[in-house]
């Protein structure tokens, strides 16, 4: 099971009321390379991975849930006190018509979240390579999001999240190296 902590992993701040940026940030909430897809991908793959790498995949999957909460916090803060008119002006009219200010798992273009965003192939190398690619794609998304905002506080949180993708990618790459090692094979055959 999981234990909920009444704290964010990183102190998220938003300086500017900017509902338009919320529309873009939702990409990392319910988009293909977003934090929900990441968390579900890793936490689902872990059941069929070799024991040596379950830990790292389990723990990165858990950290992704903390990142999901950070993105949600940014979106929440950016839209919390916006009027219906401001939502409309920000291009969030279609969202508002269906959800008011509620968060919804869709991408920046409004496409609802789908399980087809990630795979569990059952082949450990294949799955870890998908994970490495997923981290790099999320890193790239954070870059494009950073390029679209000039709010220093928001940028700060996005930069933290981008850096986490770098570290996760590093650990997944190490997991591949661990699976390439011969040590256990000798005992088994």
């Amino acid at each position, binding site marked *: 099971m999981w234990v909920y902590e009444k704290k964010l992993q990183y102190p998220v701040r938003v300086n500017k009321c900017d509902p338009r940026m919320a529309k873009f940030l939702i990409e990392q909430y319910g988009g293909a390379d977003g934090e929900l897809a990441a968390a579900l991908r890793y936490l689902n793959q872990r059941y069929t991975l070799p024991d040596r790498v379950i830990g790292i995949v389990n723990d990165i999957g858990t950290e992704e849930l903390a990142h999901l909460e950070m993105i949600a916090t940014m979106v929440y803060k950016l839209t919390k006190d916006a009027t219906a008119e401001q939502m409309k002006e920000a291009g969030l009219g279609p969202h508002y018509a269906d959800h008011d200010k509620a968060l919804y798992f869709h991408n920046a273009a409004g496409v609802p979240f789908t399980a087809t965003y990630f795979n569990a192939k059952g082949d450990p190398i294949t799955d870890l390579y998908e994970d490495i690619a997923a981290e790099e794609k999320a890193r790239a998304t954070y870059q494009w999001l*950073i*390029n679209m905002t000039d709010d220093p506080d928001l940028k700060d949180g996005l930069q933290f999240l981008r*850096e986490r993708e*770098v570290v996760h990618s*590093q650990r997944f790459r*190490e997991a591949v*190296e661990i699976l390439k090692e011969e040590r256990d094979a000798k005992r088994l055959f």
Partner: protein
Amino acid sequence: MYTYRKAYRPFVSPNDPCPPMWVKTYETPPQLYLGFQPYGMPQFPPMEALRWGTLWPALFAPYSNPYKQKRMGGYRWNGQMNGSRYTNS
């Protein structure tokens, strides 16, 4: 040592509709180079680690909007036709 960002000059056609960006860039962060992390690498103190998003300076990859950067001849078209339009080296 390596750089976090690489640049290249895309082919520029006289038929391109937008003012050309003479130089384009892409990111090459540290996880591409580090290999299996060795024991005992230098660390940031806790507050710094939180701020930068990693405990290890070796894994820290700074990022800033490349469109706002002016080095390497400017990533943005500067309004002048210096340099060949056809360069892609």
